[in-house]
């Protein structure tokens, strides 16, 4: 088998491209319609567990009951955690640097990951109160909120 050593290891660079179309379903469609058409942010309450979930869902994570109701949450919220992204990745929706934060909207029990803008990074802190800036032309996806900014 020695003669195998005369061959330089062979490698190829390729890529796989896949297209898809994700359907948001019952709870998701209702959320995106409200965001796009009325600039309202909705969450899913579970009366059993006394929790309000974002993103909205049709099943309670904790007690498995079916959730049919939706309530308005936010639009104001509180920064729970944040970071400054300083490296570029093709999947990033914005060029670096940008501030990425988890914001708990008023009335919700779970956080929403989104951008912070119109603020110096040095000024951002946990507990900071923020409000959303909506896109003027909204399409029914999460970037209908452009970013959050301080009150």
């Amino acid at each position, binding site marked *: 088998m020695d003669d195998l050593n005369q061959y330089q290891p*062979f490698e*190829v660079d*390729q890529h*796989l*491209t*896949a*297209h*898809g*179309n*994700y*359907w*948001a*379903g*019952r*709870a*998701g469609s209702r959320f995106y319609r409200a965001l796009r058409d009325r600039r309202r942010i909705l969450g899913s309450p579970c009366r059993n567990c006394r929790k309000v979930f974002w993103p909205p*869902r*049709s*099943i*309670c*994570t*904790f007690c*498995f009951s079916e959730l049919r109701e939706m309530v308005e949450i936010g639009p104001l919220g509180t920064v729970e955690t944040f970071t400054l992204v300083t490296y570029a990745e093709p999947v990033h929706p914005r060029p670096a640097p940008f501030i990425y934060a988890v914001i708990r909207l008023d009335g919700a029990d779970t956080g929403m990951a989104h951008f912070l803008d119109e603020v110096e990074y040095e000024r951002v802190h946990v507990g900071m109160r923020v409000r959303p800036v909506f896109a003027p032309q909204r399409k029914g996806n999460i970037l209908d909120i452009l970013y959050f900014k301080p009150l």
Partner: protein
Amino acid sequence: MKRNVAIVGGGQTYHRARRHDVDQAEMVNEAVRAALKDAGMTMDEMDMVVLGNMEFFEGTHMTDCWLVHATGAYGRQGLKITTGGTVGATVVCAGAHLVASGLCDRVLCIGFEKQEEGDTGAILSGVANPLWGRSMAGAAVGYFAMMGSSYMAAWGAKEEHSAMVAVKARQNARKNKYAHLKLDITVEDVLNSRMLAWPIRMLDMCPASNGACAVILADDKTAKDRCRKPVWIRAMETAHNEQFELDWRDVKTKRPIFSKVCAGRIYGRLGVSDPKTYFDVFEIYEPATWAELVWYEDLGLCGPGEGFRLIEEGKTNIDGPIPVNPSGGVLSTNCIGASAMLRVWEAALQIRGDAGGHQVPKEVRRALTTAYGGTNWTVMIALSGALDD
């Protein structure tokens, strides 16, 4: 098996080409709730959740994590399995291992696929070696077409014979309220359908479906205390083909083929000498018509080269002596991650006598199911209505 394992409940969604009214979680949850309702159990009674689908076939990864609320796995033990078209049956095997070993008493098994959302062809091409075969990959149609040409050349079967399989599947599907392609078609219609890859026409192939299936497995005690009609898993076997040797289509090959190897093993475990009389119904994984004819032979329902005679004589019809796929099979419904589990669940329904419109009109005590997937491998599961049968 160290402990007996029973199917104590199950359920499925309606299978459709389009399900825009639900997201993946909502769709999976429909099957889970149906299974719990069928078993008369609650999510709290489940010790573990085993989930299966094909990675990225719907453009999403790690579905066990982000469907955790819909599968009921939150706060429980969970396991995710991906093995190709076999996945639904592999999930059932894994669940059965958990119960048989004593690790769990009740396991919820789920398989799903929302095929319309992803790029099945592109992702499937990843199965092939990038330097050896990927450039021609993504052609499941071509693979089964070659199987058809090889089968006809070897045994003298005609395109009409594969068309008969297509007709049987879709006519059976019309009796199954959950099936996707319920088509009132004739052999003529099949032969007149669009040619995809000779000898495979549009109606020779399975559809791309959205849907989910769930079954609940339990130990002896739970089954006897809680279930009116438990269906017992009597034996399970898997067998692989060798990498690069996709020789299932070469019907005269002398090589050990996964399908025959697996059938031999499972028959050996059960002491089966004549499978067509031992089992009362078969639910097999046939992504294309020609595969069904080859399955007949590989399962020993007839001799080599006689598969097309079985369909010609109507032997495998729903009211025939060897009913195969009374549900309509994969040819009528293919939500890949669910397809192999649907074979198991449909076979269990036949044994319970609960299949409804597509119930086989004879006593069904025992059933055999097959799966097919990956680069040629199978999972077979044998079921019976009584432990001493």
